[in-house]
């Protein structure tokens, strides 16, 4: 792999130029990412409400947060959403990728169709699905026109079901992306292994299950990372589709944080919830980055 170019043989300018060139980005990252994490963390220990102040309040905001039923609704929704969204997108993506890998005619065109939702803003997706799932004129009306007059579909306005509309729209937008990742992975699997297994008389499903999918472990892993990351950060889709409602029944932590910090004058609680989100992401990402970078160093 890459050997670091030895710097000792270069002149003074050449030695310092790379660091100098990197410095602005490094400073921006240091101040605006890491500095702000600390700052936001500090805010979460203050009494800030409408405006930030720096009066120490200890864990008071976290206690308020954990006493807030709305926060636990958001957390519960995140678990529901993450499990169904990640599981569903992986399932749909893997199946479509395997089907597309069967030397399909028009593969390019089909792939384009599967993936285009990924180019859309979640706001666009949310607006479109809000109309499709409209309780009066959407799917319900369509089913009535087709003769299923008893059919009702009120998930958007039903606080028990509203989070599932977010899952539906999220799957529509992101499953094609998973397909693309897996298809790329499948293309990387050595054909000769599959041929050999076929000669040994293994059936196609068995070959995929026993040989191909295990070979795709890195793809599975990075896809999981990306999807769980999308799930935790999900904000736009909820804002456009349900606005967190009815009531706060479809809130996720990201919409909870926004609402506390910017519309309800509970800045400290908002900051505390953001810290909780950061910790959740860090728990997933830091071990992953660590292993990736170590691999890089040895490779």
């Amino acid at each position, binding site marked *: 792999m890459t050997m670091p170019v030895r710097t000792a043989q270069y002149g003074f300018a050449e030695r310092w130029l790379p660091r100098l060139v990197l410095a602005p980005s490094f400073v921006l990252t240091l101040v605006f990412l890491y500095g702000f994490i600390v700052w936001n963390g500090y805010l979460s220990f203050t009494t800030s409400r409408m405006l930030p102040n720096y009066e120490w309040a200890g864990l008071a905001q976290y206690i308020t947060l954990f006493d807030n039923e709305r926060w636990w609704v958001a957390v519960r929704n995140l678990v529901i959403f993450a499990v169904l969204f990640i599981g569903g997108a992986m399932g749909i993506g893997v199946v479509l990728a395997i089907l597309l890998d069967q030397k399909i005619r028009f593969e390019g065109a089909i792939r384009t169709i599967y993936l285009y939702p990924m180019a859309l803003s979640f706001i666009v997706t949310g607006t479109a699905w809000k109309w499709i799932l409209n309780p009066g004129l959407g799917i319900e009306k369509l089913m009535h026109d087709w003769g299923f007059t008893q059919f009702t579909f009120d998930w958007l306005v039903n606080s028990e079901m509203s989070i599932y509309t977010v899952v539906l729209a999220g799957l529509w937008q992101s499953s094609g992306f998973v397909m693309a*990742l897996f298809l790329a992975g499948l293309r990387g699997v050595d054909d000769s292994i599959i041929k050999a297994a076929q000669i040994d008389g293994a059936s196609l499903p068995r070959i995929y299950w026993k040989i191909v999918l295990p070979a795709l472990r890195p793809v599975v892993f990075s896809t999981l990372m990306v999807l769980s990351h999308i799930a935790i950060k999900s904000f736009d889709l909820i804002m456009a589709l349900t606005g967190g409602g009815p009531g706060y029944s479809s809130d996720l932590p990201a919409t909870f944080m926004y609402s506390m910090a910017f519309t309800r004058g509970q800045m400290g609680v908002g900051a505390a919830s953001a810290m909780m989100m950061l910790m959740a992401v860090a728990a997933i990402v830091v071990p992953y980055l660590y292993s990736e970078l170590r691999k890089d160093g040895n490779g």
Partner: protein
Amino acid sequence: MNQERFWRGLVYAALVFAALYYLIPLYVMLTTSVKDMEEIRTGNLLSFPQNIGFAAWGKAWSSACTGVSCDGLSGYFLNSVKMVIPAVLISTTLGAINGYVLSKWRFPGSNIVFAMILFGVFMPFQVLLLPMAQTLGWLGIASTTTGLVFVHVVCGLASTTLFFRNYYVGIPDELIKAARLDGAGFWRIFWRIIIPMSTPIIMVTLIWQFTNIWNDFLFGVVFSAGDSQPITVGLNNMANTSTNVKEYNVDMAAALIAALPTIAVYVFCGKYFVKGLSAGAVKG
């Protein structure tokens, strides 16, 4: 052989079914946007429009209400254009330079710098919102397009650096060494050797950043106001403005207007778009 044909038929059927699943929402958006409200009420989601008209498109562009004002999406669209162009160009340029240093001019500690920048790809931006809002105020660029460009550059650096760094790692170091023996320096190597080899990754990064920044809603809704709000905020305001009768045709036309630029990029540069997605997903 017959059995094989049966299975292939089944595979094609499943693929076509899935294609319909992805296409129907687009069909519904398009057809709804050219119907009038009367037809929307009497017909259904899938019914083909009887009298195609573009009144809803006109209204969405120039006269639909987005909260208090009723000037359509045109202003928001322009704001997004003014925001996206500098943000994409600056973050891509910085990413290219960073990637070049972090792959070809490593120094002790450069891997730590890379890891620190990399975490930005995953960071939940919620932790930045409150401090950033205050800082933008201090800098005097709160609620301006300049402020939004700044936020997008800072938060985009991680991805662009990662893209370029991973691409440049694949360029053989021997090329750099040879150029050094010929007396070329840091910038000369960058311009004469690295940049000419970078067209694919530049395309990938430009498209990735364009799509992300155009589609962003979080920063738009938190850091902009009035005449700097991007199109996603305009669209969301329009679709969630609950005055009198909801005009679904106008909403759908508005959604399509907001989607057009990224769809166009996807259609014309799909190859690079897919590469960007995989590059963004498969790190290291």
